[in-house]
């Protein structure tokens, strides 16, 4: 690096004002002008201000401060007195130390004052000395590394500093710091709200390019300026950007390496620069770290991708608690940064170039991965081949390593198609998309994909096409996962249509996934016929396709086909399809395929139940349990829980109540502690089911205990998935006399919003009641239940009756009459008698009505359109 660069980048305070001004970016210039104007105003108004510029190392704080200082000093006829404390001012641990530093800056001979300064009132003495020097003149103190300075001061010293500044209203402060000072956010900190904060941001990718152009222009390097304006330049700037994190200083340091003729090597000057300039730059900071922090930093540096606290703790053999507190310190020191993804923070190096230095320290002879990554992104494949051939020694090793990373060996004879810089850019952004999808930030992922697509030029290049197809597919999946199924559908259709003619296997995989997902989206939208058609279309095209990844899609598309058939009521066909999934994919170990197998088995059981083949349904559930009971994957856990629940109810309905009870107990034992809502739902059903099975076994006390347990766990839940089991359990509790008015009210509130559930509950309730006539008496005292019974019964009755125009009129009349009649009937017993007789009649028991009193019989006959009254 030239001496000019070294000075500008590391000691800007030693540059001329003209150089500083020329190398200011626009946003820094605007801030500088604002600060200058503000400070000048303090002079004219005899006031003060306290500014704090915050920015990571290398973002140009010193440059900015030096420019402001230089400009102010050059202001003619200014009475502003400027004092700059040097950046390396060490050993300030108190207010008096700070004042002594000011005195030193004024060339005062401190040695003669030690005794006074050392006393308890030393700071007052120092303040007086400064007052003698500065008088009432407007004074600007320029302080670097404010956070470090304040960290060494305790609260009392900080208060003294603040008090000093407040008492001397002619003194202003312009400070800089890589981070906010500790406790800055706490309202009781002595300096809370004291400074006006000005953040300095890292450069963006586009601005990084502008910055390098500006730097080159200021050095008069026109060749470099031109190369930075070329088409390839942004891709190269991106490659370097990733290593520097947009840091001004580091970009500046690398800029010399970036000037290159076509074949000028990058490795040697880069390694030299790293060795001579970067290493001392970072070593100083690393050596100052406590051992534990240094260990943690190395652990992070060894990984290119960000790490969680847990992972870092594991890698650095420390506890999570220790690691967490050390990470906080490292963050405050500006060495690491964190980003929240979901519930966890992920940490990475603030300056990726530090990784290069650490790599060097750990193994000088090895090829450094960071440099290989830079070369891989910087050069095209052909260039790397050429450079590898033209160089020897460690340079050749680097070029070959970079070439290998591009997937092409130096000895390869086949044509190198040469990677489009767009592909490298796409890979980068697709990795970002994957990260966003993993953390469920679907909106952000869609925004990034739209950005990718809008910036891609039209091209027939297969490689670009493959990436574009992948990006668009991700977009569709992001839509689907955020519930936007219509948009997902459009997206998948677009991918399938746009890329149908490409033969490249990678693209065909994306097309297959798009078609498979299209069926899923249609299923979500309730368009089962269309979903079926889409599945069949896919299977026609891809069922026997062995290309990588396609059979995974075949597995879950077959499963989805089964779902669509089931939703259409074609359970026979659905069972057949699920069996095909089992036959084809039982032995496939891929996790996503195993999920499809598990769900297919579960749904097979469900369809068999609908076909009345209950024994076969139990067998299907048992098969699922045998295969997947030990599997911990979340989706498979859910299917196991559902299978247990469904099996339990089937067994109960088959009268195999002992087995039903065992099954429900098994579910509750396995999943009782699982907090996932869909699994909690199954646990709730299990507790309810267990109770009903116990009732059928005549174990009434245990039945009651089961419901008590249920209510304890789920009684207060408002989660929509649990409302069904809660309502049913309360209904049962009411029947057995264990319920209460508040529970009844809760059930009524749930049923009010769900007609289907209400009807269903009362149907089952009365089916159960018919088996337990002793319990009917329990209902007499619950007036509200009586009212609900009426509504439930009429709805049930109405659902059983045909509805022609004439019959609808009569039904309206009948409903009115029935309701009025029911209100007049005393005691729930009679109501229930009427109901059960009506139901029995509808099921074919023609003598059922004879059990009713005449008045009630007439009502039912009229409602059914039978007997004399109906004619």
């Amino acid at each position, binding site marked *: 690096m030239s001496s000019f660069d070294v000075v500008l980048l590391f000691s800007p305070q030693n540059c001329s004002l003209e150089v500083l001004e020329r190398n200011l970016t626009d946003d820094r210039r605007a801030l500088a002008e604002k600060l200058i104007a503000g400070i000048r105003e303090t002079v004219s108004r005899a006031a003060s201000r306290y500014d704090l510029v915050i920015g990571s190392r290398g973002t140009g704080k010193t440059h900015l401060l030096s420019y402001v200082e230089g400009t102010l000093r050059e202001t003619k006829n200014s009475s502003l007195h400027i004092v700059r404390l040097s950046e390396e001012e060490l050993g300030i641990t108190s207010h008096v130390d700070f004042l002594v530093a000011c005195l030193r800056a004024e060339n005062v001979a401190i040695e003669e004052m030690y005794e006074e300064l050392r006393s308890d009132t030393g700071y007052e003495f120092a303040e007086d000395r400064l007052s003698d020097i500065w008088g009432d003149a407007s004074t600007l103190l320029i302080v670097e590394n404010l956070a470090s300075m304040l960290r060494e001061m305790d609260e009392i010293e900080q208060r003294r500093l603040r008090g000093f500044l407040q008492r001397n209203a002619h003194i202003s402060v312009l400070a800089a710091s890589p981070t906010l000072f500790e406790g800055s956010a706490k309202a009781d900190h002595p300096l*809370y*709200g004291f400074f006006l904060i000005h953040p300095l941001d890292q450069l963006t990718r586009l601005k990084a390019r502008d910055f390098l152009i500006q730097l080159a222009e200021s050095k008069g390097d026109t060749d470099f300026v031109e190369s930075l304006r070329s088409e390839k330049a942004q891709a190269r700037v991106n490659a370097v950007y990733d290593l520097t994190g947009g840091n001004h200083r580091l970009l500046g340091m690398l800029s010399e390496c970036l000037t290159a003729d076509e074949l000028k090597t990058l490795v040697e000057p880069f390694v030299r620069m790293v060795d001579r300039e970067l290493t001392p730059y970072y070593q100083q900071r690393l050596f100052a770290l406590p051992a534990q922090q240094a260990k943690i930093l190395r652990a992070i540096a060894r990984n290119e991708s960000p790490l969680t606290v847990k992972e870092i703790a594991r890698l650095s053999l420390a506890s999570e608690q220790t690691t967490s507190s050390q990470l906080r310190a490292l963050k405050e020191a500006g060495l690491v940064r964190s980003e929240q993804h979901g519930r966890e923070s992920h940490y990475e190096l603030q300056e990726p170039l530090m990784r290069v230095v650490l790599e060097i320290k750990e193994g000088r002879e090895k090829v450094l991965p960071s440099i290989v990554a830079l070369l891989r992104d910087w050069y095209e494949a052909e260039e790397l081949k050429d450079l590898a051939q033209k160089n020897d020694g460690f340079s050749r090793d680097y070029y070959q390593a970079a070439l290998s990373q591009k997937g092409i060996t130096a000895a390869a004879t086949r044509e190198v198609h040469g990677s489009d810089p767009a592909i490298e850019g796409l890979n980068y952004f697709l990795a970002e998309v994957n990260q966003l999808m993993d953390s469920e930030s679907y909106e952000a992922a869609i925004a990034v994909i739209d950005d990718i697509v809008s910036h891609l030029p039209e091209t027939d290049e297969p490689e670009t096409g493959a990436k574009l197809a992948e990006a668009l597919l991700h977009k569709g999946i992001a839509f689907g996962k955020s519930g936007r199924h219509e948009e997902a559908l459009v997206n998948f259709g677009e991918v399938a249509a746009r890329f149908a003619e490409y033969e490249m296997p990678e693209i065909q995989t994306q097309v297959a996934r798009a078609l498979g997902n299209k069926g899923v989206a249609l299923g979500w939208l309730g368009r089962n016929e269309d979903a079926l058609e889409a599945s069949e279309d896919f299977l026609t095209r891809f069922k026997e396709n062995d290309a990588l990844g396609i059979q995974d899609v075949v597995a879950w598309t077959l499963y989805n086909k089964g779902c669509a058939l089931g939703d259409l009521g074609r359970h026979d066909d659905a069972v057949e399809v699920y069996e095909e999934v089992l036959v084809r994919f039982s032995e496939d170990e891929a996790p996503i395929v195993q999920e499809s197998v598990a769900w297919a088995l579960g749904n097979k059981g469900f369809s068999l139940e609908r076909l009345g083949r209950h024994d076969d349904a139990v067998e299907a559930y048992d098969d699922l349990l045998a295969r997947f009971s030990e599997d911990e994957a979340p989706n498979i856990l859910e299917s196991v829980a559902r299978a247990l629940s469904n099996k339990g109810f089937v067994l109960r309905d088959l009268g195999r109540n002992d087995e039903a009870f065992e099954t429900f107990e098994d579910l509750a034992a396995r999943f009782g502690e699982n907090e996932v809502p869909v699994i909690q739902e199954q646990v709730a059903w299990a507790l309810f089911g267990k109770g009903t099975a116990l009732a059928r076994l005549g174990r009434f006390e245990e039945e009651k205990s089961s419901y008590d347990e249920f209510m304890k766990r789920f009684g207060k839940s408002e989660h929509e998935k649990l409302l069904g089991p809660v309502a049913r359990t309360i209904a049962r509790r009411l029947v057995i006399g264990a319920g209460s008015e508040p529970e009844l009210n809760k059930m009524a509130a749930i049923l009010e919003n769900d007609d289907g559930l209400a009807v269903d509950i009362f149907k089952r309730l009365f089916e159960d009641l018919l088996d337990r006539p002793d319990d009917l008496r329990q209902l007499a005292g619950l007036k509200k239940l009586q009212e609900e019974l009426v509504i439930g019964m009429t709805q049930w009755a109405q659902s*059983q009756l045909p*509805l022609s125009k004439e019959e*609808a009129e009569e039904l309206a009349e009948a409903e009115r009459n029935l309701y009025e009649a029911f209100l007049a009937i005393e005691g729930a017993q009679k109501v229930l008698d009427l109901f059960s007789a009506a139901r029995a009649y509808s099921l074919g028991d023609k003598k059922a009505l004879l059990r009713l009193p005449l008045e009630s019989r007439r009502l039912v006959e009229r409602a059914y359109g039978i007997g004399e009254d109906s004619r």
Partner: protein
Amino acid sequence: MPEREFEPMKVVIGSVNRDNAQQSVVGRDDMADQFWEELRRGSLQVLSERRMGKTWLLHLAQAREPEDFVSVFLNVEDLKNVLDFSQRLMDKVYVEVPATGKIDRLKGYVKRRAPRVEGQDVGKLKIPTFSNWKEGLQHALTTFQSRIGEGMPVLILDELPHLLDSVIQTGRHEEAIELLDTLRALRQSLPNLRMVYCGSLGFHIVFSKLHKEGYTGQPVNEMGTFDVLPLKSEAATQLAGNLLLGEDVQCTELASVASAVGEVSARVPFYIQNIVHWMWSHNEQAWSPDAVSVVLNGMFDDVGDPAKFKYYDQRLDQHYPSDWVEQARIILDILSRESDGVQIEQLLNLVRHIERTTSLTQDDLLKVLEVLREDHYVVRQDGTYRFKLEIVRKWWHTARGSIRT
């Protein structure tokens, strides 16, 4: 203090209806009457945050309904789709505004059942497919108008923004848009019809989500706004005094204690109720006006948060865009410490004192502040920003404590 008469009232923590509103709602009679006057001019949006008593006010308004209005009240917060909304509306209208003729009644009966059973096989017959939810809505409101003849039908939709937000969150933006547009079209085609949209979740949040999807409509721009503000000082004192008397809370001097309760509660009826309830449950010795000031500390510490202050914190996560949630919290944390308000420059600077928001620009800050204002968290007064309700500011400061960095 002028002589004041209090009438004993019991604390009601829950809802009222139009039948008991007159007895339970204090200090809102004028506002209720004003509501009807404004409604004569056109449909309204009733705006306020939760706890301000807007639902109670609406029920009181219904109880004081002029003869030429007929109103129907629907709370739609729990609904998740427009079909259910349409169904509930039809159920309400057909039941509360009953038909007189048998045929009319039957038609209503069938219409109500239709969306649930259409297309199904029942016995030998197939129930015909009826029209979609829009026609159901239209039929219901047209029927509403026709059944009351010359009167003005009023449809009060409580927590409509929640319904819209639920629909949007399931990805059905078009449905939300269609509902708003359909309701607007109905207002235009039935000129006597009045709609009242109420919600504690601001329409601005719903509309910002719809705008992101490209919706440019203005579905409420012809609707006036009706703000439900805290009670006037006198009314707050009256309510507090009535409740203190009704609940037998011992006071050194009823009127002055009632006045203190009114002030400490920020004159919000819900908080007045809760404070009196708390005082009743801590009735060991007579309450003085000074002692009332410590009630809030006790309430804030109460297990279970009976006054539901946590709602102010939790709703940020539920309804705000994810990238604004943290910024909104930080802003509110800062404002909670400054009872006199903060100027924008100072606020920006204090926000920047927190590491996560050091780089926030003034534009971004103003955007979040605007949403907080529309959401009734914050007001701008005399050039400063501050919490709208002092009681909420105190809770926030107590609950959130110092900012976690």
